[in-house]
């Protein structure tokens, strides 16, 4: 587990990608795409988060257990969002 070191250049590359995505998310916000604005914003945010997790946090090179733990956190979040929204979305429709 200790073994794997990522080269420094890789970090700079990831950082550059993150900055590009940041610029992209800001510029997309200036284009009116109706409901797609939030979808695009969230997609970009998720990509950025995944980059940070995989490379800055080394998950890409970590053990299976780490993968499971990371996924569990987000999976539980998804449970919360889905079931709560199932109420909110249908509450006032008959």
């Amino acid at each position: 587990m200790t073994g794997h070191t990522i080269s420094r250049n890789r970090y700079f590359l990831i950082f550059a990608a993150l900055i590009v995505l940041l610029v992209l998310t800001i510029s997309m916000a200036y284009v009116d795409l109706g409901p797609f604005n939030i979808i695009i914003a969230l997609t970009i945010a998720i990509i950025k988060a995944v980059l940070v997790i995989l490379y800055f946090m080394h998950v890409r090179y970590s053990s299976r257990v780490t993968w499971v733990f990371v996924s569990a956190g987000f999976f539980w979040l998804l449970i919360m969002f889905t079931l709560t929204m199932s109420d909110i979305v249908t509450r006032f429709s008959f």
Partner: protein
Amino acid sequence: MSTSGSENHTNYLNDGYGVKSWLLTTDHKRIAILYMISITLFFMIGGFFALVIRLTLLSPNGTLVSADTYNKMFTMHGVTMIFFFLIPSIPAVLGNFLVPMMIGARDLAFPKLNLLSWYIYVLGGIFTLSAMVLGGVDTGWTFYTPLSSGYSHTNVVPTVIGVFIVGFSSILTGLNFIVTIHKMRAPGLTWFRLPLFIWAHYATSVIQVLGTPVIAVTLALVGFERITGVGIFDPNIGGDPILFQHLFWFYSHPAVYIMVLPSMGIVSEVVTCFSQRKLFGYRQMAFASMAIAVFGFLVWGHHMFVSGQSVYAGMAFSALSFLVAIPSAVKVFNWTATLYKGTIRFNTPMLYAFGFIGLFTIGGLTGIVLATLPVDVHVHDTYFVIAHFHYIMVGGAVMGYMAGLHFWWPKITGKLYPEGLAKFSALTLFVGFNLTFFPQFILGYLGMPRRYHIYPPEFQVLNVLSTAGASILGLGYIIPFFYFMWSLRKGKVAGNNPWNAKGLEWLTPSPPPTFNFDKTPVVTEEAYAYPEEDLAGG
């Protein structure tokens, strides 16, 4: 490491005396004892509030205390019993003591964090206790908004701060267990050789780590709203109080499994030992524990059928609730199948385990009844609900705790408790429990609502029965308290393994040495490898 050895009987109890050696200890066994003392204290406090409730309900017109005081009594009863007694009970006491021993480790992965969790618990306790001393709280343990965030005139803020804080002690315990179980198992102890007590604690820890933060942040929002006067649950500015209920129950339904899963683990240990049999369907049992931990997070909306939640969501939650019954039923079947053809010894832990199985079954089945949406509209917020969850939390979880206390008392203290008296009090508890809570099913079904201090006179007979039962139940808790104390001085010396049980914790002396084992054990067999051949002959 532990060269101190057992020849001069150095154990965790006589390895240093003095207050400091206890308050600054990082030994998981000593921390377990600290927790045991603290939760017993809270159990007594909670019990006192219960006493006032039951005494008030002796008469239909509620003469003993005023309506306001009554509201405070059931609130403080619930808060103490749930957050300060039942949730920490088995994990923080028996789990703390036994998880490292059962997996052949010297301690938990993070001993200092473990001690910290106890201090956090105490700090949370101080906040909540001071809220009580300063005049109490009356929102119900559920802290529903907007009552809690605006309308209540009682000490909501210190109480929710206390519960917020104690949540982190629970998280730290769970985190510690998860890491310990992953990383510190003895050589040869593979996942499917682990005792089910460990599986149960693993599942519990998952809930603690993933559920508790949500109630923490939710109560923080309530406290914030109360202090500043503005908040996101406030209907006056367009806030949604039902959102509070979602967030609250997202934790609090799974929390009921924090309370009951560890008990299930204990029952598996006790049932196999006292029938000297392998557990029927070991793998199913392990998976069932994990399934409960996951499914438990999918059903919370069954507490909100009549809250104004969408009926479509209600229907989904109702259907999902039936799902969680499956792994619970698997467990009950497998315990029963384990007993089949076993040579059963009716020692006290076994009596409690039987109590658990029976009462949990009743509690679980009435849970299904409640989770059926149309039925719940009728019995929601009645004594039927009260009976349901007491069957599970007292009949199930606390019985399991008692089973575990008796089972491992010889290991923890090195002394035997008096068996005859213990059996007697187990029976007392069982009788008292049923007399207290069975009538409440009927009361609720007939329509007596919960959380009122007066009721129509025709309900009096059943209420008097319930109060009578409660006094027997109380006796059932007091007797063990005294014989446990007595056994510390006068009890017979237990020896390493008084029950002829399997499991690493029984290989080491009682009380165990500071680092648990003189030499790290090597595991070569599965759990509960009781020699069944001997009995199969007949």
